[in-house]
């Protein structure tokens, strides 16, 4: 009990909005959960969070979403239908999974392309800014048939500066539960636009806004009340999970994020997003337009 009180104190100090360490005049700021921090600092802080949670990432996801995250990810991959093609002799899809360290989405994409669409030439690069998450992904890939094959590669990179990836080279760019951690989402969206081929697909699975106000109240109570506590008990790291729930709350909701995607130059299908489980998560998609030759 005493331990929890100590940790409660620890988290309240971090929870004060607009913390006393104000950035200097010319520095731009962003949010880290409910704190306002300098942009340069956010990257390092996020790195800290994810290095800490890497090993227990999936367990924590299971607790936080009551296992539903697996259904979301399955639906996400199915709705993209990777590897599909109009002719059996096509080259397969060139895919890029951003912030995909542990490989959840990447392995699902490869499985779907291989087993459902008979596309053994589809490939994927898993990119993550955090080497610990990537080594977790490498470890897990050993359980699949893709380990040490040309179909799967790993890349340490910042989504805002994908220098190693050529423009107009990617069929599918996915980012699942990653973009809310980026320092500059607009920059990441513009990089996505650059690396995608004309006609290429940007697909994002991310936490979003619950549409029903009553359900929203219950959900917020669960998030802020239970999750940091579970983080403390299961992973021994309350602060990181406090950050996670705060970052979910600060992330732009459905319409706003859809507009950001459109501002980056993408065309959006239908209304631009699909709500999952009442809006707890949402899938946003964008298609890069082709040049008109008139």
């Amino acid at each position, binding site marked *: 009990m005493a331990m929890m009180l100590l940790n409660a104190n620890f988290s309240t100090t971090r929870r004060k909005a607009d913390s006393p360490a104000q950035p200097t005049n010319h520095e731009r700021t962003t949010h880290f959960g409910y704190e306002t921090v300098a942009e340069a600092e956010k990257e390092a802080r996020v790195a800290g969070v994810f290095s800490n949670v890497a090993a227990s990432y999936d367990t924590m996801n299971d607790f936080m979403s009551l296992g539903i995250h697996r259904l979301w990810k399955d639906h996400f991959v199915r709705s*993209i239908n*990777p590897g599909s093609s109009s002719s059996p002799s096509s080259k397969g*899809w060139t895919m890029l999974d951003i912030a995909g360290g542990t490989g959840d989405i990447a392995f699902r994409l490869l499985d779907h392309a291989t087993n459902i669409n008979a596309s053994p030439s589809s490939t994927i690069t898993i990119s993550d800014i955090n080497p610990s998450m990537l080594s977790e992904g490498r470890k897990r890939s050993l359980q699949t048939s893709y380990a040490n094959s040309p179909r799967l590669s790993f890349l340490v990179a910042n989504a805002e500066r994908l220098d190693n990836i050529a423009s107009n080279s990617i*069929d599918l760019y996915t980012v699942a539960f990653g973009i809310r951690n980026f320092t500059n989402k607009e920059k990441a969206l513009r990089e996505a636009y650059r690396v995608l081929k*004309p006609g*290429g*697909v940007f697909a994002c699975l991310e936490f979003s806004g619950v549409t029903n106000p009553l359900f929203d109240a219950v959900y917020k109570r669960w998030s802020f009340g239970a999750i940091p506590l579970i983080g403390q008990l299961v992973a021994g790291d309350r602060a990181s999970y406090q950050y996670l729930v705060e970052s979910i709350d600060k992330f732009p909701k459905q319409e706003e994020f859809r507009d950001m995607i459109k501002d980056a130059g993408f*065309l959006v299908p239908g209304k631009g997003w699909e709500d999952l489980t009442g809006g707890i998560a949402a899938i946003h*998609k964008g298609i890069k337009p082709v040049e008109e030759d008139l």
Partner: protein
Amino acid sequence: MIPRSLSPRSISTELRLRQRFYHSYDHPPHPGPFTPTETAILSAAIPHIPSHGFTHTALALGAKDAGFIDASTNLFPSGAFSLVHYHLVAQRLALANHKHILHSAPDQKPLGIRTKTKLLLWERLMGNRKIIHRWQEPTNIPTSIAELTSLSDEIWFLAGDTDVDVNWYTKRTILSSIYGATELYMTTDKSPDYTDTKEFLDRRFRDFTVVGKLAESTFQWVGFTAHAGINVLRSKGIRI
């Protein structure tokens, strides 16, 4: 089905509703439910339907032809049904192009409304001839019914029907059912130039003429009987 301009709705609902089920001179015609990019891909996909059907493959081929890639099929949340929807909309809008039916030459006697209706219906059916062997049950009932209603209204409107009375609903319902039945018949018709379908359509229209007068008096009869029935129940003490 209440005309939308009369029912109380918020602006956002009105914006969400992409189709109007009737023609209105007060409101400009809606540009259609498809964006320019979607239209480009879908129209490029239509020629592939005879060989590939209303499938994801046809859609992907259309995407390729329009300069996109296989992945671009993600632009269509309803997948292959978008092809069905597009076909219905494109064929309906193309009806307005049949000038030889709609505007007769100055020296010819203008065609009657009923004749025009029949001719337009036939033209619409012939618009299906390339794909009818691939036509299956619709997988999205609300959209399909909405399109059928729009088609029926479009045909009556183009034929010059300006009556605004209770028969507005009857006429459209009857035309929808004639069209539905004839289209279904057409899926199994193997006669050259669909002559069997033409005869089927003629028979339906003949029934319609006979039934038309009947419908009006039936409608009255049903109304009177229902009214009488309710009064009987009231007299028994039931509060209605």
